[in-house]
């Protein structure tokens, strides 16, 4: 049975939320691991949770990206294991070069904490294979540096490789400017690596995986963890 590590960095604060969803809701064996204690690739999947790391000095995620744990995560990713970065975890994966681009300060220059609609752009990843392409998920964001950036001329390549995983969309499922909470290029909320097994997103699916947490009584974020479960244990899981 698959075993998942939720890696804690100095400043992680969504680690317990991710643990609860993985362990108690989707029922996967999960362990919290302090980043310095992760010495071997002993797990079947890795989650880098949200929060902060090293005060987010220099740039969000930049210092944590040099943690030795990233060597293990990189090795696991190269071996095809699923790796998920949520919010600060996404920033760390980008800064470590495991995902393309950069995550910059919000165009509003404000910390944004709100519910967003995410359109699933590809189901080829271990975190979206239980969703439908075009499905819209209501998932909250909470960040100051969430503006995904990649040079405009690199976006078609990202699209061609199906590396755009989520986009912020309107109620009509359109990627409009109004639906874009932070100025991300092309409304991109989450991306994956070339192989598709490393996924990062700014929104917090772990905060949208129990009905009681949602103003609309939904649990849309759970499909991301259910997909992971399905990847680790097979479709019958």
């Amino acid at each position, binding site marked *: 049975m698959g075993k998942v590590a939720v890696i804690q960095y100095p400043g992680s604060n969504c680690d317990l939320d991710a643990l609860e969803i993985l362990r108690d809701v989707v029922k996967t064996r999960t362990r919290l691991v302090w980043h310095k204690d992760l010495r071997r690739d002993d797990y079947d999947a890795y989650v880098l949770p949200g929060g902060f790391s090293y005060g987010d000095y*220099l*740039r969000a995620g*930049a210092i944590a*990206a*040099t943690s030795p744990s990233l060597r293990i995560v990189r090795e696991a990713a190269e071996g095809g294991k699923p790796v998920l970065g949520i919010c600060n975890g996404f920033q760390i994966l*980008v*800064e470590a*070069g495991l995902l*393309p*681009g*950069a995550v*910059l*300060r*919000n*165009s*509003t*220059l404000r910390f944004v904490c709100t519910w967003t609609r995410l359109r699933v752009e590809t189901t080829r990843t271990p975190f979206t294979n239980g969703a439908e392409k075009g499905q819209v998920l209501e998932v909250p964001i909470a960040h100051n540096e969430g503006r995904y*950036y*990649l*040079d*405009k001329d690199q976006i078609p390549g990202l699209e061609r490789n199906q590396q755009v995983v989520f986009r912020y969309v309107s109620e009509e499922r359109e990627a409009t400017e109004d639906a874009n909470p932070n*100025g991300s290029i092309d409304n991109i909320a989450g991306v994956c690596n070339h192989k598709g097994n490393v996924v990062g997103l700014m929104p917090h699916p772990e905060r949208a995986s129990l009905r009681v947490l949602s103003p609309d009584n939904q649990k849309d974020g759970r499909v991301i963890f259910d997909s992971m479960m399905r990847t680790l244990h097979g479709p019958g899981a």
Partner: protein
Amino acid sequence: MTPGSYVVEVIVENKPLARDPEGETIHQNLILKGGYNQVTGVRAGKLLRMNVEANSPEDARAIVRKLSDDLRIYNPAAHTIQVRIVG
């Protein structure tokens, strides 16, 4: 050149095509509102000033350039840097 301690600055800013909302806000809401219409653009960035022991200013600059690349003091996907000797 003599070995010694040099002051090297690294300036990190967004690439020209990456929007810089902080610079834009300072420009629009402070500088232009304050009547300084001669200022046609502002870019905000980050400055790191490092004291470096090296054999020459060129060496000091090369060390800082290398560490900036090796340790990703900037993210080349979105930023540019300038490295300069100031003392």
